[in-house]
C-alpha cells in the first residue's frame, strides 16, 4: 500500500485545500480496501506511524518550509486530517470485528454432542410387537430359556419320536440320558412352553404375549442362527374362534406395518394348533405389486398360528390335576388361539439387514446405525 506524496507548490489557501482534499481522498480510498487484521495496522503505520508515518513526514517537511502566516492554517489542516484518518481506522476496526463475529464461525463444521447409545434392533422390534398386543389387553409372559422336554415338546403335543426332539435340531443340556424323557433339560426351541406354564398357573380367560430368546441346533448362515427371538401370543376363553384369530392378527399387522397392510391365511401344520395357518402380509415395500423383497409375489410370509389343539388343553388339565389344581380347560367349552413370529426375520426385513449374524456380533459399526 502506498500513497503518493502530493507536491505542495505554494502555501496559499487554494493550494492547501487542493492538496489536503487529495490526501483525504487517498486515505478514504485506502480505508475502503482494508481487509481487517494486519491490513489495519499497516494502514495505521503508513499514515500515523511515529517514525515512518506519512502525516509525520509531511508535517515536519511542510511546517518547516511554510511561511509563518501559513503555519496556523497548515496545523489546523493536519489535525483535521489526522482526526479523519483515525475515524476511518476506527470505522474499519468496528467493521472488522462485526465481520469476524459472522464469518469467523464455520457453521458447516459438524457439531459436538455426547455419543448416545443405540437400541438393539431386536430389542426395539420385540418391544414394538409386544406393545401392539399389550394395547389389545395382552399381558406379558416370560419363561426360562432352559426348559424340560415336558414343557417344550410333550405338553405341546409333539409325539415322542418327533424329529424336533432329535439332538440334530435341539440343543440339549449334558447328562440328561438317565432322566425320564419329560424331565430332560434342553434349550427351549420356541417360546411356546410359556403357554403351558401360564395355563398351569392361571385359569381362563387368558391373553398373553410372550417375547423371548430361543435356540436351535442350526448351522449359522446369512438367514440362520442357533439363537434367535420369538414373540408368541395366546388367547384362551370361551367363544374364541378362528375368525377371532384372523381378526386379531389382521389388526396387529395393521398396527405394526400400517393400515394399508392386508393379511391372508394358508393352511399349515404345527403339532400344538389345529386348524393351523401361515399368515402372509401384503408386501410392505411394494404394497403388493411385486418387488425383489417379496420375490415378486406381492406377499411376505410372517407368522404361524392356529387354534390351540385340544390335546394341549388335555395335557394342561392332566398336569393341573397332578399339581392338585382344577382341570379348568374343558375342551368342549374352552377354545383359544396361539400365534408366533420370528423377531429376527421381521427386524431383518424392516431394516434391510442381510445377515442375521450381525444381530449377535456386537459390531458397533452395525449397531450404531440404530441410534
Amino acid at each position, binding site marked *: 500500500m502506498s500513497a503518493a506524496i502530493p507536491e505542495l507548490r505554494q502555501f496559499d489557501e487554494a493550494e492547501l485545500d487542493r492538496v489536503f482534499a487529495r490526501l483525504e481522498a487517498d486515505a478514504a480510498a485506502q480505508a475502503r480496501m482494508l481487509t481487517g487484521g494486519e491490513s489495519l495496522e499497516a494502514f495505521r503505520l503508513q499514515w500515523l506511524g511515529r517514525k515512518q508515518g506519512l502525516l509525520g513526514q509531511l508535517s515536519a517537511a511542510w511546517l518547516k518550509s511554510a511561511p509563518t502566516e501559513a503555519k496556523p492554517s497548515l496545523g489546523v489542516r493536519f489535525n483535521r486530517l489526522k482526526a479523519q484518518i483515525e475515524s476511518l481506522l476506527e470505522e474499519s476496526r468496528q467493521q472488522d470485528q462485526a465481520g469476524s463475529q459472522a464469518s469467523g464461525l464455520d457453521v458447516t463444521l459438524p457439531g459436538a454432542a455426547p455419543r448416545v*447409545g443405540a437400541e*438393539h434392533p431386536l430389542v426395539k422390534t420385540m418391544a414394538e410387537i409386544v406393545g401392539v398386543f399389550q394395547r389389545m389387553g395382552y399381558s406379558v409372559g416370560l419363561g426360562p*430359556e432352559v426348559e424340560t422336554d415336558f414343557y417344550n415338546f410333550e405338553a405341546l403335543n409333539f409325539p415322542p419320536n418327533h424329529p424336533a426332539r432329535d439332538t440334530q435340531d435341539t440343543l440339549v443340556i449334558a447328562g440328561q440320558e438317565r432322566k425320564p424323557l419329560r424331565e430332560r433339560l434342553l434349550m427351549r426351541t420356541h417360546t411356546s412352553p410359556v403357554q403351558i406354564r401360564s395355563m398351569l398357573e392361571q385359569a381362563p380367560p387368558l*391373553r398373553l404375549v410372550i417375547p423371548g430368546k430361543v435356540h436351535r441346533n442350526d448351522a449359522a448362515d446369512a438367514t440362520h442362527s442357533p439363537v434367535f427371538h420369538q414373540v408368541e401370543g395366546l388367547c384362551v376363553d370361551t367363544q374364541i374362534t378362528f375368525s377371532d384369530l384372523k381378526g386379531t392378527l389382521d389388526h396387529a399387522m395393521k398396527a405394526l406395518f400400517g393400515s394399508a397392510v392386508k393379511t391372508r391365511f394358508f393352511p399349515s401344520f404345527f403339532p400344538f394348533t389345529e386348524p393351523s395357518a401361515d399368515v402372509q402380509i401384503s408386501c410392505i415395500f411394494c404394497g403388493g405389486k411385486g418387488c425383489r423383497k417379496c420375490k415378486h409375489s406381492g406377499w411376505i410370509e410372517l407368522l404361524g398360528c392356529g387354534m390351540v389343539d385340544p390335546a394341549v388343553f388335555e395335557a394342561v388339565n392332566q398336569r393341573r390335576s397332578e399339581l392338585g389344581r382344577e382341570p379348568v380347560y374343558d375342551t368342549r367349552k374352552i377354545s383359544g388361539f396361539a400365534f408366533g413370529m420370528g423377531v429376527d426375520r421381521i427386524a431383518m426385513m424392516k431394516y434391510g439387514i442381510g445377515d442375521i449374524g450381525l444381530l449377535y*456380533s*456386537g459390531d458397533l459399526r452395525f449397531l450404531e446405525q440404530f441410534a
Partner: protein
Amino acid sequence: MNILTQWLRSYLPRLPVDDRRLAEDLTLRGIAVEGEFPASCGGTLYEMDITTNRVDAMNHYGVAREAAAIYGLHLEPLAPAAPLVENRTGAGFPVRIEAEDLCGRFTARMIRGVRIGPSTGTIARYFAALGQKQILAPVDVTNFAWMDMGHPTHVFDLDKIEGGIVVRRARAGERLRLLDGSEKTLTGDDLVVADEEKPLALAGVMGGWDSRVTEATRNILVEAAWFDPAAIRSSSRRHGLHTDASHRFERGADFNAAPLANHLVTRLVVEQSGGEVEGPLVDVKVPALAARTAERPAIRLEVSQVRRILGKTADEEGAGQGIAEEIVARHLKALGCDLTRQAEGEYAVKLPSWRLDLEREIDLIEEVARVHGYNRFANTLPAFQGTVRELAHAAQEAAIRQTLRALGYTEAVGSTFVSAEEAETFGCAELAGGVEGAVAMGNPLSAEAGMLRPSLAPGMATMLAHNLHRDVSVVRLFELGTVFAGSTAEVKERLGLALGATGAAKAGGSLYRPEDALFYEVKGAMETLLGKFSSAQSAGSLSFDAAGLPDWIEPGRGARVWLNGELVAVFGELSAAQLQARKLRQPCVVAGIDAQRLLADALRQPVVTELSRFQAVERDFSFLFPDAVTWAAIETALQGSAAQGASPAKEVSDLRSLRPVEIFRDPSGKAVPFGSYSLLLRAVFQSKERTLAEQEIASWTEWVVARLKALGGAQRV
C-alpha cells in the same frame, strides 16, 4: 414332489380353471404350489411343497382329490379301469404273513412271459416331462404307479423266489444285498419280504439285488402291501435308507390302496412288456391292522362344535354367520368321508382309509376350514373380560436400558454359550444368587460353546475384541440377558448385565491420570445406573473396594461393587492374560453386574429437596496426603460414614457438599514428593434458614483443616 397338470386333468377333464388359478387355489388350501414351469408334454409342471402330514396328497390322484373338493367336481374312485385278461388256470401265488403286527396287508400277482424293453407311450412322455430316469419298463411302471396314486409297489423276478412269499422279522445277522448294491446286516427288528429260504427285500424300504427284475427276466411277481409305520421308520433309520417307499409307509399308507396299486401295476406291465397274468390276485389281510386303519370306527361330529371353533364366515351369503351345515357335510364328503346324520347337526363320520392323519373331531373341523378356504372366514375381534397383568420388572429393565444408552452405551446381544475355560474364569457364585457351578451342553455347537454362560462378561470381552479387530477403537457396549448357574441336574437362570468400554475415555479432567480415566468413566456409569434404584439412595449404601478381584481383572485395576453389603458387580480392566489371549493391544474395561439383584429393588422415586434462598459459600482446601489416605477416608472424616448413620459431622451443621476438584501427583517427585499427592478439595456451606456468618464459616474451615491434618494431611499454602 412334482405334478403335471396334464396328468392331473386326465382325472378331472372338467376342471373349470387354468393352471395359474389352479395353483393359487390349491396353495390357499394348503396344497402348496411353490413353482410353476411349462411342461414338455404340455400343460404346467408344479413344484409342490406339501406338509408331511399330508402324504395322501403327494401324488397326482391325491392332488386331483383336493381339486375336486375345491371346485365341487366328481372324481372317479380309484378302481380297476378295465378287467385284466387273466389266465385262471394257475392258483394264486402262496403268501404267508408271519409278522402280523407289522404287515397288515400283502397282495401278489404273477405275470408270465414278459419281454422287457424300455417304456413307451404315456409313461415315457410323462417321465420325460418330469425328468424322471427310465430304467426298465416294469420298474418304470412301479414308479409311475407311485406318482399316480401314491402307493409303493415292487416287482420281483418270479424265478428267483423259492417256494412262496413269507413276510417276517429278519433273523439277527441275516444278510441282504439291496437294489442300490449295498449289503446290509439285518437285525431282529427289521421286517423282510422273504421266500422260504432267504430274505428278498427290506420290506417297505428297498427291494433286494438278487430278486430284482433285469432284461433277462421272463416272469414277474407284483407286490403291493401295507406295512406298519413305526417298523418302517426304525428300519429306514437303522440302515440310513430314506426312499419314496419308506417315506410313505412311515407316515401311513392307504390300507385299501394295495390291491388297486397291484392291479394298476399288473395292467401296465402287461401293456408295456407283454406276458400273461396268471392266477387271481392274492390278498392277505390282517384284520387287527385293518381295524386300526381302513376300518376305524366312525367319529362324532357336531356342527355346533365346527361353528364354535371356526366362528363367523365372510361369505356374501350368510355373512357374519357360522358355516352352514350343508357346506360342512359337502366338504367332508368331497374328501372321502362317509357321513351318517344321527340327529340335527350331528354326524357319525367314517374316515377315508387314506387319511390316517384324521383321528378326532378337531381334525375334521380343520378340514372343513381348509377346503372352504381360510380367507372366507371373517376377521372378528374377541371381547375380553380378563385382567391385564403388569410384568413385574418391566420398569426396571427399561430404566437400565435407557440409563445406559444415555451414558453412551449401545445395546448388544451376544452368544448364550462360552468355553469351559471362560465359564471357569468368569463364573462367580456371589453374583449368581449364591448358586455354584456352570452348566455343560450335551451337544455343543462348537468346542468354544460348550457351556451356558455364567456371566455376560466373557461375551462382552469377545464383542469388544470383535470391534477392535475391525479397527473400531472406541467402543461402549452393554448386554442385558440371561445367565446360567448350577449343574446339569438343575439350572438356575438370572438376569445378568455387562458393560464394556475401550478407547478414548472422555478427558480425565483434573482428577484422574489419563490411564485411569476409562476406569473412572465406567465407575461413573455404574454409579449412575445403580443410583436409579432405591436401595442405593441412602448415603454409604453403595461402596467400592479393590479386594478379592477375579483373575480376569488386572490386579489393582478393578473394583468390587457393594450395595448395602451385598456384592452386585465386579469391574475393571481385562487382565494382561485376557488381553493377550484375545490379541488385544489397548485397555478394555468390562463390568459384570447381577441385574437380578437390581430387579428386586424399586426404582428411585425422586423426592425434591427444598432449594435454599440463602447464599452458598465455597471454600477450597489444598492439602498434601500420603497415597494411603483414600478419598473415602477423607469423606468419612468430614461427613461421617455409613456406619455412623451417615450423618454430617455435628461440628459443621451446614456442609452442603464436599468434592475433590483436583488431584496432582508429580512423576518427578519435585512439586509433590513420591508416595503422596496433592488434593484440592472444595466444600460448599449453605444454610436453609439463614445467611451464614463469617465467623462460623471461619470456625468450620478451621475444623476441616484440623480433621484433614489429623488424617495425615499437610496443608499447602
